[in-house]
């Protein structure tokens, strides 16, 4: 139980990100919130493969040791690139929303039409 305390950083990141998405009214801040959630999930993924005292899974001439698991690192890499793509698309939509409304405040942007 006590050894799991470091994982709470993941919860912290995800909750901060979610609350930003849910409570912030500025679109850019919502996007930042989503990237925070993403960071939390990526952090969790990469810690899953960590072994105490391990080295990176790369063979060099230096003395070896226990190696960290490579699969979570590869998954994190994939997930980071996906995150970049999503963020790019969200930002470009935000630029368009700003063009149409002159504001990024969700309360001032139309909202639901039945």
């Amino acid at each position, binding site marked *: 139980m006590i050894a799991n305390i470091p994982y709470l950083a993941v919860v912290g990141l*995800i909750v901060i990100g*979610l609350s930003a*998405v849910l409570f912030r009214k500025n*679109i850019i801040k*919502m996007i930042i919130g*989503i990237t925070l*959630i*993403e960071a939390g*999930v990526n952090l*969790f*993924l990469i810690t*899953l493969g960590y072994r105490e005292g391990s080295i990176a899974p790369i063979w060099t001439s230096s003395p070896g040791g226990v190696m960290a698991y490579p*699969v*979570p690192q590869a*998954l994190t890499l*994939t*997930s980071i690139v*996906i995150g970049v*793509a*999503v963020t790019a*698309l*969200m930002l470009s*939509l*935000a630029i*368009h*929303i700003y063009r*149409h*409304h002159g504001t990024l405040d969700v309360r001032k*942007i*139309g909202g*639901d*039409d*039945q």
Partner: protein
Amino acid sequence: MSFLDQLIIHGPALLIALPLLGAFLTPLIGRVNDKLRNLFVIIILGITAILILLLAQEIFASGPITYVFGSTAPYVGKETVIRILFEIDALSIFMAMIGIILSFAAAIYSWAFMEKNTGLDKYYALLLLLTVGMLGMVLTGDMFNFFVFLEITSISSCALIAYYVNKAKSVEAGFKYIVVSTIGALFVLMAIALLYGQYDALNIAKLADSITFSFVDKIALVLLLAALAMKGGIVPMHMWLPDAYSRAPASVSLVLIGTTQAGLYGVFRVLFTLYGNVIELPTISMGWILVILGLLTMLVGVIMAMIQVDFKRLIAYGAVAELGYMFLGVGTCLTVLANPEVTLAQAPFAFEALKGGLFHVFNDALDVGLLFMVAGAVYYATKQTSLNSLGGLARNMKYTTVFFIIGLLAVSGVPPMNGFASKLLIYESTYQLNPILSIVAILASIMLLAIFVKVFHAAFLGPALPQFEKVKEVPKSMLIAMGIIAAFIVLFGLFPDLIVNTIVDPAANALIDNTGYLQWLTGGA
């Protein structure tokens, strides 16, 4: 080995690689000639459709196919599954068929519908990518791979929803969609990480084999179901759906139905296969949750559809209502399946309900798709979307009117259309679980019929309006696309038994009994 055998062996990879290659090539070909590019996209999708048919034949004949990427030795021992593999059973190929029919129709439809717009190179590339995402989601046998394809689907559909960037509402719908689906996808990734952390596996079959339903597994299940049901537009999480469907170009709405269905496929796969071995543990409640969500979805969809004046938005709420039927059917099956006291043989209605639910997935895609295409055709001809300003179109748009009647009858479950065939299965089977369920379901159908008859009256009947005097029938490509879907609807309506026995029955069997899916792992084949 003949070329055909080779094609079937490498079929699973080609199903993804071919549209993907097409997507990479489309912008290059688009520089040469516009018509050539349109033709190229249609041909690529056509070849993919033929491949799917070939594979379907193989799978219905001899069970699930696995395809391992990167090595001929699929896995090392039964303990470790190292590489990504595609595992295609009857359910996967069933969903793939739906997806490819929709994309194919959308590509033909776009020829004339999108002709006057700019940026079409990217539009077609994104359409192909959306197809890739959809196919990948339903074919893959690896959880992380599923997540990657989920993201491909979200990103491409978000860009396509925001296609009309000069309209503020489209951009907002796109933004709403990307926010919701990204958070959903991150939940899915979190669940995958939780599962990986416990079982050191990413392969669905491997996970299903070793899952123990610990507390963490329950959390992962909740995360997966919440996120995927949201992608599938089930009621408390349906807010994005009407916006996205109604603001996208009609051809895109058509394919979006396919992505929604892929989300539902995720729900089914998670419940029946991934957690299939422990399905008896979560007691009966899981099935009832699905049933109640299905009923809610139905009612909310129908009630919201009643007050709409925008043609496409109304259809979008109709689509929400239709999604409820699938959940109702599958949930009914799950109530029996998860109950250790009743075996499946004692309650044959459960299997009927599952068949009805799955058959309805196919039918809903066709029916709602046809209605969206009609709405797009009306928009193309009149530039109007509000029902209040439409009227008397039946005079000038005869074929479109016929297609709308077909779609109307099918979506509200009137014989002899396909909607009736699947809804009948659902009514009959849910009646045996609880009569109230089927009464609500029938009521929702009747309300749908009333709503769409009203729409028919408002848009197509009535006196000829002076501003629509010059309205002409839509171009041939749009009529052909509508014709293809309408032909399927009538075909399914006339021979429901044939369809149920050939494709729905194996799919339902694959879902209910996951030993086939785990066969290669547990040492069968």
